């Protein structure tokens, strides 16, 4: 097994709150600078930048886990990742169908643009991406797993937009592949505060909205190679793979 460093929660310029500097090429360069081997692209309720970041990253020995940060109808943020572009695109159709239709006001929330690798704007997304979908946490979990994806409730230690804030506590029965904690708490502290959640692997990520935040904290995987399946195995502590 080899040790790889990952930051699985990064926003791009597509998220209205994401900095305009978060262009695909910048994200890849910054990730390399921070010695990351794996990054997760997780814009709010949209997967539109995963492919372009993956394409650029593949030329720099950087693996991209493709997904989104989905807002459930309880206003809880959850990360969803998919093993192929076909499944990712299929999930995008579900997002299009279930995101509540509120039109973005760029002057209030920021621009939501999809760009190419030369940073030319290809498309501006109209519905406000930070609004919520109509999917409950449990419905989202089922939809993600039906598509072979990974379901990871985001920044569960935080007092806003987390399972903890919205539903009072992380339901120990939740069918999550892992739980994400933010840079505001250490794994040791979280484990100590939440003995009922010991069965879940923990990932720690930056939730970067600005280039300088990328890799602020990371997750270390002991796996054979950076791939979706190897990461899945590590999260479930299978075949000697592990989250360190």
């Amino acid at each position, binding site marked *: 097994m080899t040790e790889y460093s990952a930051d699985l929660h990064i926003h791009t310029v597509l998220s209205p709150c994401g900095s305009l500097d978060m262009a695909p090429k910048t994200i890849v360069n910054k990730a390399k600078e921070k010695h990351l081997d794996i990054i997760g692209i997780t814009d709010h309720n949209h997967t539109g930048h995963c492919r372009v970041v993956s394409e650029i990253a593949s030329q720099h020995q950087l693996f991209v886990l493709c997904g989104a940060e989905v807002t459930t109808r309880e206003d809880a943020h959850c990360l969803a990742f998919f093993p192929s572009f076909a499944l990712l695109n299929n999930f995008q159709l579900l997002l299009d169908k279930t995101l509540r239709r509120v039109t973005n006001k760029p002057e209030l929330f920021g621009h939501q643009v999809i760009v190419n690798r030369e940073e030319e704007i290809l498309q501006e997304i109209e519905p406000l991406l930070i609004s919520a979908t109509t999917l409950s946490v449990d419905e989202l979990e089922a939809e993600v797993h039906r598509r072979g994806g990974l379901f990871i409730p985001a920044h569960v230690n935080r007092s806003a937009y987390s399972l903890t804030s919205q539903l*009072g*506590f992380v339901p120990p029965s939740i069918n999550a592949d892992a739980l994400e904690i933010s840079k505001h708490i250490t794994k040791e502290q979280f484990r100590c505060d939440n003995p009922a959640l010991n069965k879940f692997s923990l990932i720690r990520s930056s939730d970067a909205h600005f280039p300088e935040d990328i890799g602020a904290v990371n997750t270390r995987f002991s796996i054979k190679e950076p791939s979706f399946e190897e990461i899945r195995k590590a999260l479930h502590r299978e075949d000697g793979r592990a989250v360190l």
Partner: protein
Amino acid sequence: MKVAELAEKQEMKIVSGHQGLSRIIEGGYACDLLSDVMGNAVEGQVWITLQTHKNIMAIASLKELAAVILVKGLQPDEDTKKQSDEEGIPILTTQGEAFETAGKIYRLLQEQTG
């Protein structure tokens, strides 16, 4: 006022937890952030919310609430209903929104206490 009486007066539907219908209502709390309800709701209150996840019953039980009222015609999840039956804390549903539901219950409680 008992939960059964409230349900009857306000034409709310009793979905589950029937064995708790004689619980006495001491007041009410309206909030959709479960972390806040856990911290601030008080024993004997009815809780007005749009949340339907089974965690609402864990919190209702922890805080010994009289009943949970789901607004806007929302229905509890299956496992939420099951837990309501197990805990004996009724779930009532109304077509009304939280604002008007809270207003009506507040008035009823005021009338009763004079």
